[in-house]
């Protein structure tokens, strides 16, 4: 008489001796193994997943040509030559290289500071630009002709404004691939539309070697 039977009312008969009442099983189950497995899988997927999907940088290189008329001549006022040296050393000059008694425009800087130099050069070119409606119309016609859908007035204006700006990139043998890609990336960051990768000349190479204090090979 110590325990109270549940649901005993309503004309229910008492179980006789020897008839055991079915034990009520708990609906709670031990979830620990399942959770363990779940976390194991989470860890597995976290480690195998590639969150940063690789992207690509487009690079077009010019055909090598010796024909004078096919070569693009850069205007001296808008040319900036950037050379990549050892480590993060970067060398640059504007226009033509001058290292004689009349002056020296060969300058050294670091990878992290090159953006300012590019932007200064760009601002310099842009300051000399006066709005040229014909150029803009020509560009727009060209986009339509080539069926380039994602280019519009903004692109045409920008392209005309920096018509004269050309950045020439010359990596040396000591330059790393990272610096090469970084400088190309810098072109997209600074929105420089015309740039070219060119082989370094022996004179420039020598200048860099002297600056870096390496023995000059003659």
């Amino acid at each position: 008489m110590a325990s109270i039977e549940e649901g005993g009312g309503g004309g229910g008969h008492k179980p006789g001796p020897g008839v055991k009442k079915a034990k009520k099983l708990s609906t709670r189950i031990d979830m620990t193994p399942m959770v363990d497995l779940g976390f194991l899988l989470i860890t597995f997927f976290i480690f195998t997943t590639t969150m940063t999907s690789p992207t690509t940088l487009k690079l077009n290189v010019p055909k090598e040509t010796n024909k004078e008329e096919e070569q693009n001549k850069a205007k001296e006022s808008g040319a900036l030559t950037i050379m990549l040296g050892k480590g993060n050393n970067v060398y640059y000059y504007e226009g033509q290289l001058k290292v004689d008694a009349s002056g020296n425009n060969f300058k050294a800087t670091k990878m992290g500071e090159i953006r300012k130099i590019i932007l200064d050069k760009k601002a310099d070119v842009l300051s000399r630009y006066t709005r040229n409606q014909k150029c803009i119309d020509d560009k727009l016609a060209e986009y339509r002709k080539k069926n380039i859908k994602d280019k519009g007035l903004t692109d045409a204006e920008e392209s005309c404004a920096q018509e004269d700006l050309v950045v020439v990139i010359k990596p040396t043998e000591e330059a790393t691939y990272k610096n090469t890609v970084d400088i190309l990336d810098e072109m997209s960051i600074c929105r420089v539309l015309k740039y070219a990768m060119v082989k370094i000349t022996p004179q420039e190479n020598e200048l860099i070697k002297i600056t870096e204090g390496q023995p000059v090979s003659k």
Partner: protein
Amino acid sequence: MPSVKIPRKSTATDMTPFVDVAFLILSFFMLATKFKPPEKVPIDPPGSVNSDQLPENDAVMISIDSAGRVFYSVLSQKDPELKKEVVKQLNTLRTLNLTDQQMNSFMNVFAVGVPLANLGQYLSASKDEQEKFVEPGIPVLDSATNELVWWINASQKAFSERGGVKAQILIKGDGRSKYPVFEGVVSALKRNEEFKYQLVTSLEGVPNGSELEKFNAKKAKEK
């Protein structure tokens, strides 16, 4: 003094919400995950702000590892026979005298970085042996012995043979590799009249206040 009885609480907590969250995260990762493509050598590509996606098909990938070794691979998940076609073409181009079996085994090789002279030996080796094989990389530095030229030529022929889609050229270089190797790769491509490449990079954010950011904003306004 009557002692204060602290009621005993059960240590078993209800883990259900916790488990719910755990499985939610699990399902997220299962759906969002994209397995890393097999890599022969770990390559750490430099970052860039460009966000064009990497193609998975109809592409030729040239990898440069940190030591400057060059590897060649064909990305063609849709058409595995394409790989065989490449090595077939290479075989006829350079008269390598590869057996049919060796050419078949090329289909299971992800990236190859051995000189042409050792290619037959490499392809007849078993999978375990191939892993131990010392791969010096495809020679590119000297223009006279630039063997990548032939690999590119063979892949151009193979691509035109099967479907005629032009192969996209991917160059995946390690940031620490030196520029001359990259130049060698580019010169091999140029000699095959290939002038458009895609450099594989990892995505970086656009720097604040940069010209690109201003341009993108202007462009968005125009639309």
